[in-house]
């Protein structure tokens, strides 16, 4: 859980694929003074082409799925995807709707899931820290 591990400043890109706004306001709350993730260098990127981590919130509607795929392709590598909330995992209470795909992993490879409906801001930070540790491990293996 050490923060020293984090060498880089990952920039987030947030995409709402059809969420109820619950996860969105918690992602927003996670970026405000109470939790202040800029301590880790985390901030919202101005454009998808500057982003390192794509945060997906909400049920994946068929219309948004096309856009999600396109956004993912436009991100520079290395790129990571965080799926926030039950809806991004498999549709949550909305599964079986005629308008939905089943989960973000059908469209893009997801690196980490944050369960909750919606997850607390701390849980979102916890998930991102966990992802950063995973990245760290990957890069250590790569440098050897």
């Amino acid at each position, binding site marked *: *859980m050490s923060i020293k591990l984090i060498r880089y400043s990952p920039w987030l890109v947030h995409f709402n694929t059809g969420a109820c706004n619950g996860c969105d306001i918690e992602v927003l709350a996670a970026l405000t003074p109470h939790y202040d993730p800029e301590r880790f260098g985390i901030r919202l990127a101005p454009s998808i082409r500057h982003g390192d981590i794509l945060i997906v919130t909400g049920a994946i509607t068929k219309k948004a799925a096309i856009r999600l795929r396109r956004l993912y392709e436009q991100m520079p590598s290395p790129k990571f995807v965080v799926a926030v909330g039950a809806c991004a*995992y*498999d549709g*949550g209470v909305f599964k079986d709707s005629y308008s939905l795909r089943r989960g973000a992993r059908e469209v893009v490879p997801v690196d*980490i*899931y*944050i369960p*909750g409906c919606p997850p607390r801001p*701390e849980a979102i930070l916890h998930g991102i820290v*966990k992802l950063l540790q995973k990245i760290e491990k990957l890069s250590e293996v790569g440098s050897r």
Partner: protein
Amino acid sequence: MSLWSEILKNVFKKPVTIEYPKVKTPIEKDFRGLQYADLNKCNGCSLCAIECPSKAIEMRKLPEDIKLKHNPRGLYPVINYPSCVFCYRCVTICPVNAYITKNEYRLATETEKLLSDTLSLQTLKSGGA
């Protein structure tokens, strides 16, 4: 004048930021966090799996070596947490109040599924059945 007092007040005030991983934020004891079935009580009626609004509960067969008198069908609920919406419908609908609730919320997972089966099976050992 008031400007100066405001400045002084703010210079000596602690920042509102909670240094999250180092300092834990205070969470209510009854915050809706993870929940799992206590197998000492569960009778395998499957009502929670039927009532779950997000269909996150799957009824599984108990391992072969475990035989429970109060659970003739040998089923127990397994919750898949990423799919769960933490509405606690399963907790309130359970006829034997078999669910244990915790305020744990840090559940981030890299795997595709995060199940409650180990937590549930542990309740048997600690309960000393």
